[in-house]
């Protein structure tokens, strides 16, 4: 599960961490939009390079590499499947442009994973919940979101404990056919769910004891305030989106063409 490590927030402090989660989310969404807008390999590579400063500023290189390693693995899978389907679809023939297209699609996937990984690595779920709250989402939902994130490691640990307990009584997880293996997990799921329900009761009790729901207007310990860095990132996001929309418009009008990368490489 080291792939998921690339998305788990760890308390740390950097320029990226201090940015407002709302602005950061807008930035990630802009990257997403541009990546989806273009099917050109060159653009995807540029977008990917655009992620480097963020990784550097956020000082999350090692965790980010974990998600990247997972993404590359899946990207290869995407590349092969696209090439295969085109090979059969176009009558057992592949052009250079097909390779370029497949590469672009794989790169697009990597770009998306890269940007979302940076977002989750540098944004505390507490602040994410707060951002939701201030965007008008009812507090109950924000609380549910933060609590869900909060209890992921707890439940993972508990699942491991149950697996160990069942194994020590002689249960074999990796045995039998696929269906049998799925069925093997039932003796783990049931105690896990029962425990989770019990846990939720204790949580409710503890929440009640800490004046949950006492006032209509909750206050908040953390606050979100836009700072200079946030305005800069917002400006960058808007600029990136406008430029890419404009270029896309020009391309669609047939006024310019985005060069292919593979022929350039092959020529040299």
């Amino acid at each position, binding site marked *: 599960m080291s792939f998921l490590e690339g998305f788990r*927030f*760890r*308390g740390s402090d950097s320029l990226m961490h201090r940015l407002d989660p709302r602005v950061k989310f807008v930035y990630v969404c802009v990257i997403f939009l541009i990546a989806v807008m273009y099917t050109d390999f060159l653009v995807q590579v540029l977008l990917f390079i655009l992620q480097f400063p963020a990784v550097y500023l956020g000082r999350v290189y090692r965790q980010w590499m974990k998600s990247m390693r997972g993404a590359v693995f899946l990207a290869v899978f995407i590349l092969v499947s696209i090439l295969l389907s085109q090979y059969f679809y176009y009558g057992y023939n592949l052009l250079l442009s097909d390779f370029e297209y497949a590469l672009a699609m794989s790169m697009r996937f990597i770009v998306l994973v890269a940007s979302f990984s940076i977002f989750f690595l540098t944004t*505390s*779920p*507490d602040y994410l919940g707060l951002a939701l709250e201030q965007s008008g989402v009812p507090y109950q939902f924000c*609380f549910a979101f*933060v*609590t869900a*994130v*909060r209890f992921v*490691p*707890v439940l993972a640990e508990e699942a491991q404990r149950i697996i160990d307990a069942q194994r020590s009584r002689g249960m074999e997880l990796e045995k039998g056919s696929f269906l049998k293996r799925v069925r093997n997990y039932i003796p783990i799921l049931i105690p896990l769910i029962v425990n989770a329900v019990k*846990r939720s009761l*204790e*949580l*409710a*009790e*503890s*929440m*009640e*004891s*800490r*004046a*949950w*729901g*006492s*006032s*209509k*207007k*909750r*206050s*908040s*310990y*953390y*606050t979100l305030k836009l700072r200079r860095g946030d305005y800069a990132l917002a400006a960058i996001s808007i600029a990136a989106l406008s430029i890419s929309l404009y270029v896309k418009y020009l391309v669609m009008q047939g006024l310019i063409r985005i060069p292919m990368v593979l022929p350039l490489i092959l020529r040299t």
Partner: protein
Amino acid sequence: MPIIEARNLTYTYPGSSSPSLRDVSFKVERGEFVLLTGPSGCGKTTLCRCLNGLIPHFYGGTLSGELVVSGLKITEHPIHELALHVGLVFQNPENQIFALSVEKDVAFGLENIGMDREEMRRRVEWALEVTGIKDLRDRAPHELSGGQQQRVAIAGVLAMRPEILVLDEPTSFLDPLGAVRILEMIKKLNEEGLTIILIEHRLDLVSRYVDHVMIMNEGSIVLDGRPRELFQSSYPELLGVGLPKVTKLFNMLRNDGLNFKDVPLTPEEASRLVEEALHDRGR
């Protein structure tokens, strides 16, 4: 006026045929350190749940008799109002922490009552200070040890500035040293005027701190008094309450005809008593 007063409290959980509390009456004075003990399933936790109104408001069931806490009848005030007077700390610290950073969690109760940020910051600082977790303020709960988590849970309750702190076996998930440290901290809070009600099985660990003991059995309070007086009888042992080992030893010596001035609660007291006895004999 006592800070907690119960009169003929009887309570049955919904769906249960027999009551979990039977005709419970007791008084707790302001500033006391109360130990509530007794065999498992005797109703200790149920009694704690009454103190901040979880019973009957959260659990339902049938409650008769009267319980007044800080001048408030629990049946007439909602939990969130009682929570400002009574802080409840539970056994498992893991399930009492909601936020992903320590300071945000300590602020949870204050956010709920809609306190303004200035005052909230002051309270959080204070609570982090008295529980000794200032350095952990930015840490996530799963990065903390059990003892540290329990400190966070206590800080979160203390930040509400209650007059009474109720702790339901707060040290059962901790190692002995961690447990002693938490208890020392609780004792310090008690010395500053906080009324403490502590549920605990390990009397060896806590006897030195307490000045009022209540022992429950099958839903009733069967013994209520000063620790030294209660621990001289053999009744607690019969109920399955493990008396402090030194106290037990001295009770045995007494039965064998050796006479000491008092019954000790801690090894330190015991050694002093022995010394005095030897000194008297030497004369």
